[in-house]
């Protein structure tokens, strides 16, 4: 009896050990698999060889080439569809790029007797990716920040606490807040880009995810040459050439934010 009891205990402890060891072995297997994957992934997650390089991305919008709502719509659609921007349709809406009248866009430039054509023309508005962004200055968690390497103002959707201080601080109305869950309002989800959750702020990211792959921002691509994108720090870049040749204005320059988006009127 004693013997059989000892055997039983021995057997039981062995099988317990086996039960414990099996998942550990399985883990070790996956770990080695992950290891080989990560060595390959160094190329996948490291800097892309095609990535566009610049130290201060900026944009010139030639508004003379975008004169009707039909010129604007495909640009907005291109941006909003790839970035999973929901179509909410009330005053709690989300927008990354949109259009407004001259009066709404350039509030410091009110003239009597504005040229009729300008009065009718839509103006594309988006985040200005300011050199001195007030939104980043006020953010209490650094969830929104200006990327040192190329001056793009970005959002960390996972750190944002939804205090909306940045929305009060932005003088351009570039930021939107997810008052509710945005997902039911996205007609077709693009799985290449994250959707957001309720309670966080979002805005245009100058297509940081496309720049990293060597592509120009979606709005630029969809604009048929009406939007010129490039490195403002590079005197030979296309944007700088365009700025050399045309008179341009920026929104609310007196506030000292130094927008990186220029407009040819």
């Amino acid at each position, binding site marked *: 009896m004693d013997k059989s009891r000892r055997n039983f205990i021995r057997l039981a402890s062995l099988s317990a050990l086996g039960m414990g060891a099996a998942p550990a072995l399985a883990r070790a297997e996956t770990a080695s698999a992950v290891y080989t994957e990560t060595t390959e992934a160094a190329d996948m997650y490291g800097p892309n060889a095609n990535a566009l390089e610049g130290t201060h991305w900026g944009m010139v919008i030639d508004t003379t080439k975008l004169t009707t709502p039909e010129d604007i719509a495909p640009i907005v659609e291109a941006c909003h569809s790839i970035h999973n921007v929901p179509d909410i349709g009330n005053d709690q809406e989300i927008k990354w790029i949109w259009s407004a009248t001259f009066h709404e866009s350039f*509030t410091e430039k*009110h003239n009597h007797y504005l040229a009729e054509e300008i009065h009718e023309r839509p103006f594309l508005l988006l985040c200005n990716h300011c050199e001195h962004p007030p939104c980043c200055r*006020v953010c*209490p968690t650094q969830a929104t920040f200006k990327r040192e390497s190329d001056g793009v103002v970005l959002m960390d959707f996972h750190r944002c*606490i939804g205090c909306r201080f940045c929305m009060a601080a932005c003088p351009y*109305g570039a930021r939107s807040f997810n008052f*509710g869950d945005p997902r039911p309002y996205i007609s077709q989800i693009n799985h290449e880009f994250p959707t957001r959750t*309720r*309670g966080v702020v979002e805005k245009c990211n100058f297509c940081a995810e496309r720049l990293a792959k060597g592509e120009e921002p979606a709005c630029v691509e969809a604009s048929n040459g009406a939007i010129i994108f490039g490195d403002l720090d590079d005197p030979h870049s296309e944007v700088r050439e365009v700025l050399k040749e045309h008179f341009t204005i920026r929104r609310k320059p007196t*506030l000292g934010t130094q927008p990186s988006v220029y407009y040819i009127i």
Partner: protein
Amino acid sequence: MLEKALKGKPSYWIWLFVLLSLIGTASIVYIFQLVYGLQITGMSRDVSWGLYISQLTYLVGVAASAVMLVLPAYFHHYKEFKRMIILGEFMAIAAVMMCMLFVLVDLGQPQRMLNIFMYPSPNSILFWDAIVLNVYMILNIIIGWITLQAERNQVDPPKWIKKVIYLSIIWAFSIHTVTAFLYSGLPGRHYWLTAIMAARFLSSAFCSGPAILLLLALLLKKLTEFDPGTQAIKTLAKIITYAMCVNVFFFLLELFTAFYSGIPGHQAPIIYLFSGWEGHAEWVAFMWTAAALAILSLVLLIPAKFRDNHALLPWTLAILVIATWIDKGIGLMVGGFTPNVYEAVTPYTPSLWEIIITLGVYGIGALILTVLWKVAVGVKQEVGTAT
């Protein structure tokens, strides 16, 4: 000393029950807000702060009421206030607690609240506001509790507490200044972008805070044996009068700058608030009510014969509280966002749910205040210093 809060007349328990049911109702609505997000509020893309944050602004002022008692008592050895000081300190605790709750209910992702401290951002005024409010609350808890305990034991409070009290006096100014900086440092919001904002916050706080305190102290006098003392009431009413005069004066300074300079951006929010803009006139009636009541409160405060008439005083104080609440507790917020950055109007009115949650937070404040004041009055009755 907390046991003092466990014994009370039926009316005390009924009052607590009323508060708890209010808090309970509001909590249910808050759960809905957690699930559905802030879409249940009246806020929008263009008016992205509303009733919640404006209550933070107003209650920071209420928290300061204590300093108007503590400063004369400790810097000028004005003995008459000694009996009432504890009420001010305990009210500061309740007010600061409400301030922090109003920030909490306004957050889109409240479970990430501690990110403010995990990623400290000294360039953000909200980071500093969280710090000064927390410290001010802790200071008042320490001061209130230690001095009340000493009073109960009929001994002098420890000497070190005086240093904490001096610190709290200076700290009180910081909570207004920092809260004003939340607004006055933002480019492109003309109604807020004014150097006098912090000064306006202080003046408004030093009239509305003590007014609410005195109003509640008079109520306490009716309900319990506690008596703040005729001289203390008179002096506090005088302080409120001066502060309200300064408050109105500062507002008139804003009007001068906006309308004499003729700069449209500076005028626009004031025009929207007082006469409407592009057919929108949501707050016109409120703002004129505030203006009329502010003037009426001064008419009833400046002449000594009205001010010292203690049957009239509660009405005067209530009038002042309504006037300052409309000005700072809602007008300041709406004016900052309207007209919006495109010089258009997106009207804001709080939703019913937003109002219920707001009342719930006030309910929590009232509950804290009731319990703390019950303790204070209980101790004072026990040692015979209530009158």
